[in-house]
């Protein structure tokens, strides 16, 4: 059974959630404090934080690129027209 969250102590699920938010700088100071506190006594949390940070670094340092959503929908519309023409 999942442990309950208290003011100071959090369960792993909550710790993982805070860690995920921290990767996007969306966690509060208090949340981070509770995460660090959990890390002091939980090996699994420490491993999760390490893995998660590594993934963030990989994506950021390697300039992974994606097509912007607007670009993609424009391209989709154009391509669908062309596809229709080919089918006709």
């Amino acid at each position: 059974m999942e442990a309950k969250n208290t003011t100071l102590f959090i369960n792993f699920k909550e710790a993982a959630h805070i860690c995920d938010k921290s990767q996007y700088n969306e966690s509060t100071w208090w949340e981070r404090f509770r995460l660090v506190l959990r890390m002091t006594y939980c090996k699994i949390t420490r491993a999760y934080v390490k893995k998660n940070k590594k993934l963030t670094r990989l994506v950021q340092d390697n300039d992974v690129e994606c097509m912007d959503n607007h670009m993609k929908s424009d391209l989709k519309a154009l391509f669908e027209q062309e596809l229709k023409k080919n089918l006709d």
Partner: protein
Amino acid sequence: MTKHVLEPNLWIDKYADYLFNYTVTRVNDKVVAQDLVQETFFAGLKSAANFKGDASERTWLVSILKRKIIDYYRKINSNKGKAEVRINYTDEETEGDWLEERVADPFDKTAENKIENEELGLAIHDCLEKLPVKQAEIFKMKTILNYETKTICNEFDITPSNLWVIIHRARTSLASCLENNWFDAK
């Protein structure tokens, strides 16, 4: 050997990001990359009849894209003289700094690093392709395109809690996929 079939109606969703990433690392220009990816899809559609099914759809599209990238470089190289490098010094103070400018920067990324980064970028896209479509889209919007939580929630009509659950699942799957396919392979 399994024969592959073409499904052009799924090309944009399945391969646009992969091909875009592949192109940007080679041409260093997002607008040019978008044009080249577009041309690739159109050319693929035109020559769909020539697809034998031996290679996967993506490999076949990448081979078309490679030719488009070569054509792009041929075109810009044929405009010789326009790409002349000029170093203009406007005042006496900056004059003479040129020797330093020309020395190779030891902190600059080496060619080997660059190749490894490109490969890793493609490996990340490979792993993203294995995720459920919605999960992959939300992860890309949040992590790569840096969209705000609110914007993504509005676009997909989900609550912030749903978004964080999706992000958590995507990150966990992606980390394990990279661990198996990238770090173990290295």
